[in-house]
């Protein structure tokens, strides 16, 4: 299949492992990515926290740019995905707002393309059977908990994610690539998101709670699909509580035996390589 690709700012910086592994996995699963032309930031938390019209307009600029490709747009970053879905929701529900925002952006919004996150695309379009058939190195010994966070799931009528209180798509994918996924009750809890820099102590507490719960569930790592969750969980927990954190695409890439899979592990702040070596996975 062919989709538009909106990487967003994080995937070119702190979340570069997600971008690299997403592209590798997409290639191997025959998903052709065409980057949205001259994209700009979605506005993230800072726009909607301070100016509603700005938040919708910044996302609309990118949705309009993506519409030129006339294909569904894949948005790996959970924060960008959430802002795009939110903009789509408001623009489709409110004609006056749509007219106002089109005036601000200087172009028409059609609303004809679907905004999709890669979990949905791999699970529902590619399918677990196809994924299973491509596994050459099952990740035996890896015991992740799946961490979905907030922005892929909520609010449910906007994000349209299956089973938003107890999602399972990541869990099933990790199972298919040979990991022993642990169940836990914190799949959809918040990591502290954008307060990491301006209110660090709150975020440290939240990340400590998540890591303690992951350990209690018997996990030896955490798997995520959000660069904000990754940044917080990778850097903020107190020293005794840290566990390696992976983007789900890094693990799929490794299980599929794709060239350069282990490279992205080197740029994590909390080094996952000792665990991977111990399990003979790298």
């Amino acid at each position: 299949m062919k989709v538009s690709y909106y990487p967003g700012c994080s995937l070119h910086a702190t979340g570069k492992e997600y971008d690299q592994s997403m592209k590798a996995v997409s290639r191997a699963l025959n998903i052709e990515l065409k980057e949205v032309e001259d994209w700009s930031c979605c506005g993230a938390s800072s726009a909607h926290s301070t100016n509603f019209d700005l938040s919708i307009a910044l996302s609309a600029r990118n949705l309009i740019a993506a519409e030129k490709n006339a294909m569904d747009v894949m948005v790996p970053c959970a924060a960008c995905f959430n802002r795009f879905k939110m903009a789509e929701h408001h623009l489709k529900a409110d004609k006056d707002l749509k007219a106002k925002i089109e005036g601000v952006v200087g172009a028409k919004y059609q609303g004809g393309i679907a905004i999709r996150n890669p979990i949905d695309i791999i699970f529902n379009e590619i399918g677990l059977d196809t994924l299973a058939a491509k596994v050459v190195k099952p990740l035996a010994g890896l015991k992740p908990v799946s961490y979905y966070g907030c922005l892929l799931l909520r609010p449910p009528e906007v994000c349209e994610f299956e089973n938003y209180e107890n999602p399972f798509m990541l869990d099933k994918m990790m199972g298919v690539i040979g990991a022993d996924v642990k169940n836990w009750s914190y799949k959809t809890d918040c990591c502290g998101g954008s307060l990491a820099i301006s209110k660090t102590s709150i975020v440290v507490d939240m990340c400590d709670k998540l890591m303690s719960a992951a350990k209690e569930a018997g996990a030896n790592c955490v798997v995520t699909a959000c660069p904000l969750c990754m940044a917080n969980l990778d850097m903020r927990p107190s020293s005794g509580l840290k566990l390696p954190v992976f983007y789900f695409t890094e693990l799929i890439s490794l299980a599929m035996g794709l060239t350069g899979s282990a490279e992205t592990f080197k740029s994590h702040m909390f080094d996952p390589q000792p665990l991977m070596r111990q399990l003979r996975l790298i």
Partner: protein
Amino acid sequence: METFLEEVNKKIHGVPLQACYHCRKCTAGCPTAAHMEYNPNKVIKMIQNGQKEKVLASSTIWLCLSCETCITRCPNQVDIARMMDVLRQMAIESGVGAREKNILKFHEAFLAGIKRGGRINEPMMMAQYKFTSGDLFSDVAMAPGMFLKGKLSLLSPRTKDMKSVKNIFEKTKSI
């Protein structure tokens, strides 16, 4: 004259806050409620009571993470996360400002980054935040490691059509 409740309801543009029957499910699921001076449902009560100054000057509205757990679980679909956005914007526009000054300074630095290059360059954004907030030393120890691992770069690609981005800021009268 428009009451505070009417003003907030109009801006939320959805289910009116009167639909809240204070079951406190929002507060029970809120990850930062323990750090707030007023719980989310208390904020609704205060709006109903017309306590505008207290609400806009509270830390609560800035500590909301927009995790959207409240709206997901509210039995009456009261959009509390949107309400918090509305209150923050009202605090800025009315000149009350932010009780949690650094949280707003972070947002300002972030938006200035978009205005500058269309996309966020994290080192530049952090530099601006640190200078304006005066919070110079936190996280500095992490920076060299992040540079070495290629997670931070001073030169990241920008949006080419910056005119269209700047237009958005001008036309929405953003800070």
